[in-house]
């Protein structure tokens, strides 16, 4: 992916529209959204509650198919309207990384296992998975908590383990939905900077939904969503 970083965009979404329900209860959550991200690019997505940010993110993340539009990741068309052009599960585990507001760690796995399980379901040998999991935890500064269950970790530590898990399979696209909402501003900023570092080091594209206007300078670009429509934010370069 990094090799063709210069010519192929990391993600290309064209005319994404999402309509929930029908008739009286119809909700247009996303209206004709088009966006292109280059490799190594880190963008922020702002917008009021109910604007359609999560809808957009889950569509790009091949979790929640759009009603209309096309998605291309790394030059490969993956969605045409609500029709998947690839095995979305395989695609998610191989190319995508997710971080949410809640860490969503498995309560029965240790911090290290929570990271290595993401690799094991992607057919990485357990020994290699453990080794890389430890490296990632070290990178995120939670290596000393590797053997603890999530219950024994603070919220911030849990979130860093979740970030490590999202990075585990060296995804070409990282999608983060309010990843720092549960963290203090200092920790929040650290996570944002980490995304930036990963994006620049590995060439992954990163989309972060955030309400935190104070750390916007970390991002290469900022978008804003309102009533399902996407536009560039004034603060964006």
């Amino acid at each position: 992916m990094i090799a063709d970083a210069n010519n192929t965009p990391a993600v290309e979404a064209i005319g994404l529209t999402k309509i929930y329900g029908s008739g009286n209860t119809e909700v247009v959550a996303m209206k004709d959204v088009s966006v292109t991200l280059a490799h190594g690019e880190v963008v922020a997505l702002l917008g009021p509650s109910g604007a359609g940010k999560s809808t957009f993110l889950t569509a790009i993340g091949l979790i929640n198919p759009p009603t209309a539009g096309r998605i291309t990741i790394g030059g490969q068309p993956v969605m045409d309207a609500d029709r998947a052009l690839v095995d979305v599960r395989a695609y998610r585990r191989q190319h995508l990384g997710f971080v949410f507001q809640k860490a969503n760690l498995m309560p029965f796995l240790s911090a290290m296992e929570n990271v290595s399980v993401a690799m094991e379901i992607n057919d990485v040998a357990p020994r290699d998975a453990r080794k890389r999991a430890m490296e990632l935890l070290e990178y995120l500064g939670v290596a000393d908590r590797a053997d603890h269950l999530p219950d024994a970790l603070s919220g911030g530590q849990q979130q860093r383990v979740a970030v490590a898990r999202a990075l585990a399979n060296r995804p070409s696209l990282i999608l983060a939905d309010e990843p720092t909402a549960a963290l203090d501003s200092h920790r929040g900023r650290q996570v944002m900077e980490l995304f930036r570092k990963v994006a620049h080091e590995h060439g992954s594209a990163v989309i972060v939904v955030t309400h935190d206007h104070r750390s916007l300078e970390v991002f290469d670009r900022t978008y804003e969503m309102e009533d399902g429509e996407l536009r560039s934010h004034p603060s964006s370069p």
Partner: protein
Amino acid sequence: MNLATKDIRHNFGRFALTTVGIGMLLMIVMGMGGIYRGLIHEAALFVKQVGADIWVVQGGTRGPFAEVSRIPANLEDRVRAVPGVASARRFVSHTIQRQHRGRPLRMVVQGLSWPEDRGDWVPVTAGRPLRQAHYEMIADGSLGLLLGEKVKLGKDVYEVVGLTKGMVGTGGDGLCFFTTSDAEAIQFDVPGEALRLERAARLSRLEGMDLGRVTPLLSERVIGQASELPALAPPQVSAIMLTLQPGTDIAKVAETISTWPDVTVYSRQQQVDLLLSGMVDKAKRQLGLFRALLIIISAIIMALIIYTLTLDKIHDIAMLKLMGARNGVIIGLILQQALLIGVLGYGLAYWLGTYAFPKFPRLVVIENQDLLSLGVIVLGISVFASLMGIGKAMGVEPNKVLS
């Protein structure tokens, strides 16, 4: 990494309790199968050990193992005259319940045709067969009697001279071998007062008849010893067991005797079949029903616990799907847990059984074939139990992580 065992470690208490419960249920299922095998084993053991080729029983009946059979004891002498018959023995058997050492003692009184049959064929584990015509007995170990112990039955006291093993009647009560005359004395033990009343009754009947009034000698005889009373029926026995001379055609002898209108004849195999098809068959159906119910209960308990374990993990399963895990990973997680409960429960059942079965009131015979079929059934219910959980897990959308 095995997600199934990691999750079990996290929910260890619930898992262990379920496994122990399933294990105990399976132990009972295993034990009930063993009791059925034990019934067959015990029922056939006596008929096989006693070694009779032909059983002669009351005409029109199915013999003493199926119902009451009464034939005159002198039939013994009649069948001895049939060509090919080497020996004839009386079969006297009845169940009694008496008081011994302050506790009820229930046993099957089994008569041996003294002096031809001294119980040499009875496999004695201690002591010896009978050596005198009266007041000796060989007791089955299940009765808890000791060698040399004296037991009062009726008016007489009998000494335990030998102990045997595995000899029980169809009701599960241990056998005790006596000479036939002792066996009959025990069965027909009549209190003195009953005898006196009977004598008085006979005397008064006699006095009402002309014959009695003119024959004083007769009145002396009717009030004589019980065994000498002429009007009393000859002693009755349940059956006569025949042993044939070597090389004799069993079917031919059986055919000859079965032409006698007052008796019915069974071969050894027919006698075993009668035993198994009657009492044992009913027990089999009863035990089979209980086993089936217990297996269904085990399956339901397993299904419920697997389902709740899955419900608890539904968010984690959604996360696994979101991260792109194959369905196989998720099905494997649930199925392995069910199989683990099944396999551990089965192992526990077997282990518990080795301690519990010898303490069961009836003989428990565990056969490999039964162990194998129960094992297959346990695997089957484990798979079945996981279906509901798997169905739930498959229906979960990865979206659920976000809510």
